[in-house]
């Protein structure tokens, strides 16, 4: 049986893991054809330098727009506190880390500061843990939706387009310029943001996070540093070097699987090495030469499957990989020394390193040949997800918009990102908020808990500062950030093939949903069979023909249409 760390260590580890996982839940985009909108290579700390990395430039060239950093206006466009106050109700998910301290978020200091500054009272309605979707659907059906719905688009079939068509969400196009002028300011000034935050016909149905700063992605290949040192090996980079590492693990560490891939066999970063990849969160669409493509449809997919099958037969891949449920479990397998390599979460692994006493290091994204470029880094899109919608039957639409708008002003975004003014942060001389010593001290709460108590890490839509300056943990302990950002300056990596968040009509969404369920069921089964050898790779051509007959071409057609409409907006 595995040896168990003492209880408090495990509890701390678990808490940190869940805190970190949740903190990145704010990074996901809307359900209709997403790519995550977190950042790309350069890890500068100031907003001004956002547009200079090559990744940015390559994708920018592909999509055809000018990279731009939008500074705050000298004066906020709306005045606070508002004249006629009132109360709005907010439906918002409260995660387990936060609910340890606050039953209702109205007690959180950030919220109290917001109420004081805006003059608008709020009441929160939190869905019970694990029942977010059901709770939302219940509210929809019983016609009792609160005014503001935070990140609920994913729970309504067809997203916000369908929700507005069905009369559940409000169309905000007319109201935003008047009641949320600071948010509208960013829409007007940043064309890419406008394209990402509006629907095909330029309507505003949700308010999104705005992020001007890039940050490195948090999934990298993780190797055991102590073993590399023992064997005098460099950190593997090309696939041949990976195999050498695996061979060593097989030889020197019996019973330990050299590599644990994700449970469906689709390792985003490896697919990226073959030029057909998505990222670890399963995105499989990418844009190359102006056309939307899908991993399954590409000829190079056969090379990927051949490689994985070869690795499986040689024993490099753990035979139980289909049973490891999630990336958290994968991180733990690696941290517990039961596998030699995972594509894991850098922040989690870094935390676990001190808890569980092992040494790990990140590697660069893998390539077939050393001089190959890598085009599948997360691209910096200014729309950072977290769609907030307003109920169509709400009587307080204007108030809700005014409330949200405050988080897009300079002072308001300081509150929304950093917490209580003067207590947890102060405005720096260059207009960028800085944490106070109290916030960084970890005195009243542990550093990871502070993200949810002293400030509000996951919350409503706001102008979002980069994780490196707005997360207490990263500022107080810069090593975590350094671990994550180690390879961020890699010039050969860019997000040139990334696909922006697209908006679909209700009918298109329904059609895509139906076709992709069938395609995914079939493909996931066949992929695992190819990898484990249950199906011979000679059947690959037949596999692709079947995928096409299940409707892949139609799906790509719909995506292409949406993509072209996006560019033309």
């Amino acid at each position, binding site marked *: 049986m595995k040896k168990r760390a003492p209880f408090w260590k495990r509890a701390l580890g678990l808490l940190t893991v869940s805190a970190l996982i949740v903190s990145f839940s704010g990074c996901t985009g809307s359900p209709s054809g997403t790519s995550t909108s977190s950042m790309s290579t350069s890890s500068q700390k100031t907003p001004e330098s956002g547009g200079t990395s090559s990744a940015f430039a390559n994708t920018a060239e592909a999509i055809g727009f000018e990279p731009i950093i939008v500074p705050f206006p000298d004066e906020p466009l709306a005045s606070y506190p508002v004249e006629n106050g009132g109360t709005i109700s907010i439906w918002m998910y409260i995660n387990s880390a936060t609910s340890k301290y606050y039953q209702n978020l109205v007690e959180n200091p950030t919220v109290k500061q917001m109420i004081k500054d805006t003059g608008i009272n709020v009441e929160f309605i939190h869905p019970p843990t694990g029942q977010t979707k059901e709770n939302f659907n219940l509210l929809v059906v019983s016609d009792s939706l609160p005014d503001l719905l935070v990140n609920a688009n994913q*729970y309504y*079939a067809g997203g916000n387009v369908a929700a507005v068509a069905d009369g559940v969400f409000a169309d905000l196009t007319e109201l935003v310029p008047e009641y949320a002028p600071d948010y509208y300011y960013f829409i007007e000034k940043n064309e890419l943001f406008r394209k990402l935050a509006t629907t095909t016909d330029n309507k505003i149905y949700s308010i999104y996070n705005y992020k001007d700063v890039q940050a490195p992605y948090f999934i990298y290949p993780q190797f055991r540093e102590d073993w590399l040192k023992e064997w005098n090996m460099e950190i593997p980079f090309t696939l041949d070097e990976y195999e050498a590492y695996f061979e060593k693990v097989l030889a020197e560490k019996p019973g330990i699987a050299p590599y644990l891939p994700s449970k469906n066999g689709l390792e985003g970063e490896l697919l990226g090495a073959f030029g057909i990849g998505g990222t670890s969160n399963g995105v499989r669409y990418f844009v190359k030469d102006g056309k939307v493509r899908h991993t399954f449809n590409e000829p190079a997919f056969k090379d990927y499957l051949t490689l994985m099958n070869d690795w499986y037969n040689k024993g490099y891949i753990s035979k139980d990989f*289909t049973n490891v449920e999630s990336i958290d479990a994968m991180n733990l397998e690696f941290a517990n020394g039961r596998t030699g390599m995972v594509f894991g979460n850098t922040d989690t692994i870094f935390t676990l390193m001190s808890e569980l006493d092992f040494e790990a290091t990140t590697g660069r994204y893998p390539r077939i040949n050393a001089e190959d470029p890598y085009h599948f880094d997360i691209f910096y899109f200014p729309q950072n997800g977290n769609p907030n919608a307003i109920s169509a039957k709400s009587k307080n639409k204007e108030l809700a918009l005014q409330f949200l708008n405050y988080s897009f002003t300079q002072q308001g975004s300081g509150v929304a990102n950093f917490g209580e003014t003067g207590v947890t942060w102060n405005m720096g001389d260059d207009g960028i908020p800085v944490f106070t010593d109290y916030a960084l001290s970890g005195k009243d709460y542990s550093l990871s808990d502070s993200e949810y108590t002293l400030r509000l890490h996951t919350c409503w839509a706001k102008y979002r500062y980069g994780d490196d300056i707005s997360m207490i943990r990263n500022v107080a302990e810069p090593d975590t950030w350094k671990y994550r950002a180690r390879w961020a300056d890699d010039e050969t990596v860019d997000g040139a093939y990334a696909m922006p968040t697209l908006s679909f009509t209700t009918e298109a969404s329904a059609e895509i949903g139906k076709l992709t369920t069938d395609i995914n069921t079939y493909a*996931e*089964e066949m*992929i695992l069979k190819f990898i484990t050898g249950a199906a011979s790779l000679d059947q690959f051509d037949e596999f692709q023909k079947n995928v096409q007959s299940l409707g892949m071409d139609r799906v790509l057609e719909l995506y292409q249409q949406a993509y072209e409409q996006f560019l033309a907006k």
Partner: protein
Amino acid sequence: MTLTAEKKEKAPFSNRLKRNFIKHRSLYLIALPIALFYLLFKYVPMFGIVISFQDYRPGKGFWGSDFAGLKHFIDFLTNPTASRTIRNTLVINLYQLIFGFPAPIILALLLNELKLPLFKKTVQTISYMPHFISLVVICGMIKDFSSTYGVFNDVITFLGFERDNLLGNVDLYRGIYVGSGIWKGIGWGSILYLATLSGADPNLYEAAVIDGAGRWKQMVHITLPTIIPIAILQLIMRIGSMMSEGAEKTILLYSPLVYEKADLISSFVYRRGLQEMNFSYGAAVGLFNSVINLTLLVAANRLARKATGESMW
């Protein structure tokens, strides 16, 4: 004196009903909440079946959603993946019927033969402990034991075979699924039969012993016939749920490697529903299942009545 041809006339039905009500009013009063419960939670919601004929969207409600006719039914029946799930559901149910149904009966018969009360009670208690363990915990255990370096594989290696990811092996999956189900339910299921057996007439046994019947003959001629009525009823009810194998266990144990034999109607609809949040589709499949189940139930009941004289109605 001529026999009067008229029978004494029965009072009209409404009068008889009224008298019955008054005479047994406390019984009716006790039964009232239960009847209301079934009315409110089982019959009234049946109106919701209407969404299986619509393209239901929560925002539009029952009256506002578009009419879709038989679209979802046809979609389900013509989808190649879906027909595979129907086959899997029936096959797994058949396995559970053939292996899982007799198991509690056999256990009950065996326990009945035990003489030492302490031993009997201990065995009984141990046998129905798994019933109380949550399904999620059990599936976690199964996954752990079936992993390549888990307990099952250690036994397999001991017997001379190679290690394998058991839950990923298409041929072994159903065995593990059904086998673990039997292990979990055997103890609890045997309680019903043991209770029936404890009501068996001891005089019959004595008479059989006098006639020279051995233990085996006693069991076949006395014990078994005592159980048969209950067993038939249980069987009929089992058949009446052939199409509705629950999704939880499947979802916890399966992986795309074994979809071919593991994917059930419920897990397929779960994935479909999660992707599209298509309530109408789920309702349509549910309705389809219920109709099939009802047909099977009525047929099984008829068959049982004809074959053995026992039936539910």
